[in-house]
């Protein structure tokens, strides 16, 4: 598992490789909050290489989204496969997040 951060067109893009679960959610949270503190305002979390997400992983996305909005920033998500989409739909979090099919789509829509 690892989180890889890059910057594309003024957007901080975080790739989640592996699982986003209770054991590593703090690492993602800290990475994004550090960038937010550093002045970044546009964030994309890309799940193209993500295995599964548990409730803590979903929770960390909810709390990051709130913190980013408080700084007038924006968080988008992309590349949720069918399984991950099921999780967002079950928990109704698909209504809370701006979810794009692809990374490109997400990046151009900011």
């Amino acid at each position, binding site marked *: 598992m690892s989180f890889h951060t890059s910057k594309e067109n003024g957007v901080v893009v975080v790739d989640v490789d592996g699982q986003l679960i209770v054991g590593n959610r703090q690492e993602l949270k800290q990475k994004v909050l550090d960038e937010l503190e550093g002045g970044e305002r546009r964030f994309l979390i890309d799940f193209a290489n993500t295995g599964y997400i548990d409730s803590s992983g*979903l929770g960390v996305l909810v709390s990051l989204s709130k913190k980013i909005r408080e700084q007038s920033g924006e968080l988008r998500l992309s590349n949720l496969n069918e399984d991950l989409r099921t999780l967002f739909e079950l928990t109704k979090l698909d209504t809370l997040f701006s979810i794009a099919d692809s990374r490109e789509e997400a990046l151009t829509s900011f």
Partner: protein
Amino acid sequence: MTDESDTTGTERSLDSSAEVALQLPSDLRIIEAAVSHLVSRCRAFAFEGPRLELNFRVGVTEALANAVLYGNSNDPAKTVYVKLKIDEHQVVVCVADEGDGFDPSSVPDPTTPENIHSPGGRGLFLIQHLMDEIHFNERGNSVRMVLMREEPRRPRG
């Protein structure tokens, strides 16, 4: 305490069912490895696909996280007990902790407008919706989850 070779646990491995028992240090860091282990034991029994990769993985992860965080109060000196039994129809997983238990019926629905913005409270909900059955013991420190290999035809309660 013995150093004979029979300290290696033997496993009932009939053609039609298999059992796995784990006794784990109560530590969030072991969850990913424990889930991979259980998944690979299921695969060895020809269970695969999204019900294994999503429903089983997430359900078991949630139960282990709750056992570590709440049941065992995140105390690394405590232990989490896991049992898995798989046969040709279903897999049954029990996760037990050393805690005092809780009342699962008191946990609110995380999808209502008041709760949807909360960072927590979706674990039991996911177990309930991803597993086919979930039972607690009376004390509330042991959960038993059943997942059918194939999606049941009747809609879930």
